[in-house]
């Protein structure tokens, strides 16, 4: 207990003595962690945006040609009665054509190539949001396709799967990136602690000659390393918090719906950053200290 007290005292004394060195290291570490966190948050946000977006995907059901009004309405009633479906929009052949015309604008003349109206009538269905798992949607779509008078069922499967691969790639990239930052921070503390060790080699030698226990020599250096990592981490947490809140507020001013898209930063992340900083620098200083042969 007292040993820890002496180690802490000695560590903080030398932190003060080497304040500029420590400051540089702390800044380097906090920048590293900040970039990492920003990247992680970007990935998390993109992931959740895609998740939400995918949930707003509707199922479009194209009806077979030549169905009577009654038959079409019957299909619509069936959808409306389905407890899984929250919204049913009917788009008639005519509306569809009108939509295409406005979409094409002056190019709409090419539609005149067709005799009559080539577009089918359709229903746009929204699945209740709590049921929106890709697998469930796929199943639902398959069921609807088997109903009478249905020509085709479309839902954003391709879109969904390519967005999924995009997030997967981003996640993998984030892991590698995180690994890189980990190595960088470990290396920074390793180097700094090695420098401290060299500067104090005479005193360390004397301590050894006086019979200092291993921990008495090593603990202050480990504490110093951890201090750098955790303070660096805390700084990037604070920076992250400030920037996040500012950006969040600013964007929300113009696009209020952003609040639905951007996930707020989980509180535990603010704690996790200094803790992981401390761990990374602990590893670095531990490797540096391995050089003390005793």
């Amino acid at each position, binding site marked *: *207990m*007292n*040993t820890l*007290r*002496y180690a802490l005292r000695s560590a903080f*004394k*030398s932190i003060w*003595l080497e304040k500029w060195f420590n400051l540089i290291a702390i800044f380097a570490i906090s920048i590293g962690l900040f970039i990492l966190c920003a990247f992680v948050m970007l990935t998390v946000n993109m992931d959740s945006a895609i998740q939400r977006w995918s949930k707003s995907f509707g199922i479009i059901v194209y009806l077979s040609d030549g169905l009577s009004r009654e038959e079409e309405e019957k299909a619509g009633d069936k959808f409306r009665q389905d407890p899984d479906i929250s919204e049913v929009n009917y788009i008639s052949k005519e509306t569809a054509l009108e939509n295409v015309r406005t979409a094409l604008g002056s190019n709409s003349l090419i539609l005149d190539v067709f005799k009559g109206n080539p577009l089918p009538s359709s229903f746009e269905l929204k699945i209740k949001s709590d049921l929106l798992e890709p697998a469930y949607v796929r199943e639902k779509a398959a069921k609807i396709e088997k109903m009478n008078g249905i020509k085709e069922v479309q839902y954003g499967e391709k879109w969904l799967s390519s967005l999924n691969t995009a997030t997967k790639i981003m996640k993998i990239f984030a892991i590698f990136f995180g690994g890189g930052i980990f190595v960088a921070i470990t290396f920074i503390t390793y180097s700094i602690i090695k420098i401290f060790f060299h500067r104090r080699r*005479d*005193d360390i030698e*004397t*301590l*050894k*000659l*006086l*019979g*200092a*226990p*291993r921990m*008495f020599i090593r603990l202050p250096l480990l504490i110093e390393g951890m201090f750098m990592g955790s303070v660096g981490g805390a700084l990037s947490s604070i920076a992250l918090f400030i920037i996040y809140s500012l950006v969040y507020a600013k964007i929300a001013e113009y696009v209020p719906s952003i609040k639905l898209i951007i996930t707020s930063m989980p509180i535990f992340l603010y704690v996790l950053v200094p803790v992981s900083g401390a761990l990374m620098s602990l590893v670095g200083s531990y490797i540096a200290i391995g050089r003390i*042969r*005793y």
Partner: protein
Amino acid sequence: MIVFSNVAKHFDNKRVLHDVSFDLKNGDLVFLTGPSGAGKTTLLKLIYCFERPSSGKIIIDNIDISAITQGKIPQVRRKIGIVFQDFRLFTDKTVFDNVAVTLQFNGMHPQKIRGYVNELLEKVGMLKATREFPQHLSGGEQQRIVIARAMVSKPKVILADEPTGNLDDENARTIMHLLKEISLKGTTVLIATHHKDLFQGSGHRVLHLNNSIIESDYAA
């Protein structure tokens, strides 16, 4: 307490000690003399495991240190208080902390440490300088701090390499008196010096080192 049996030490081709044997008991106060370069410091270094003997056997407090593993060295060194010829004080520590450091190794309570340290600083006449840094003190003052540091943990052995080299007669007498006092309490004290007047007529045992051997072993 300290046993040397046929110890030799050479650096590369340079022979410093050759077939040195002696035996020091608890509470002995012995002088180690000899001309400069005779190997006094080297002999002390062998005792605190800074140098390893080239051959022969060294036993400290019943531990054979000629075959000791790295991990056990701190344990042996904590039995030994060393007055280094070149002081080896911590320049970033106050006088108080310089003396306190060996007590801190064992995790002793700060209040207890304060008592021990102040008592010893008082004895060497340096209580007034508790909060100063050693590099701001004179050579003689620094030497007294080193002596206080070596004694404070009440070690079984004290090795003093020229402990009075920088002291005036008055202070030298004080230090010699302290070393005698601690030896009477059972600590083995080995003093390396070439100041004959430190031991002449004192009746203490003297090991005279010359030409790599103990040329004479006598009572002064």
